[in-house]
């Protein structure tokens, strides 16, 4: 029987893969997608636990996470376009203006 543990482990694996992507990739859009992965894995946790505890609150939270993700997508992608317009690139190696 598949229990809540399975879902949680799956979620942890996906989250780790997302982290791995964020840390290794240089393309800002791919990094962005990896962040979406991480968010989704957390959503899965929420829904799995929501079922396990027979409570609706987790799912409502997922709803809000999605809202935030949507907003983030809109703003993040706009940022990327603005950046691309200045630098002709969205490679994070070019994101080095924070230096000193």
């Amino acid at each position, binding site marked *: *029987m*598949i229990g*809540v*543990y399975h*879902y*949680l*482990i*799956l979620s*942890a*694996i*996906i*989250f*780790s*893969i*997302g*982290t*791995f*992507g*964020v*840390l*290794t*990739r*240089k*393309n800002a*859009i*791919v990094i*962005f*997608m*990896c962040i*979406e992965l991480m968010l989704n894995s957390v*959503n*899965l946790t929420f*829904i*799995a636990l*929501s*079922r396990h*505890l*027979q*409570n*609706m609150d987790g*799912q*409502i939270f997922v*709803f*809000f996470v*999605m*809202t*935030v*993700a*949507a*907003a*983030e*997508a*809109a703003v993040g*992608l*706009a940022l*990327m*376009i*603005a950046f691309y*317009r200045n630098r002709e690139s*969205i490679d994070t190696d070019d994101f080095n203006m924070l230096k000193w």
Partner: protein
Amino acid sequence: MLSILFYLFATVAIFSAFYVTKARSPVNSALCLVTTFICFAVLYIMLDAPFMAAIQIMVYAGAIMVLIIFVIMLLNLGTAIKKRYTHALVWGGGVSVLMLFITNVFIRRGEMSGKVGDVTTQTIHNYGHTELIGKAMFTEFLLPFEIASILLLVAIVGAVILSKREV
């Protein structure tokens, strides 16, 4: 039967997720991400959350992914040059594995207990998942819901301002 389904979709989700991070072309990454989202939607259905599955498909696989692919196409991004070995790869891999290990320990050690609600499988079947969500959303969580709408408004304005050439 359900176990087989779970393992199947879980495996697909893991592999496609991994491929998101590995694909050299962002378009490939995006397509794999869609696959992962769809697998998740199936898992949501298996967790008696059909409404969540629906909006997973609509919002993530539909809206967000379309947006991403638009941007990829708009910026005309090429494929990344493959690098065999980088510091980032080793560090990133190490940290991720460590994280997975820690999370595993936590999950195995932890107790999945808490305040148990009254939303049993039976209730969901009786009332319907969408109705339950709607009830919760527009009664108990009305204020966060409204705030979320403001957030979206702000995001819209922000996106417009940022992508305008001249403000």
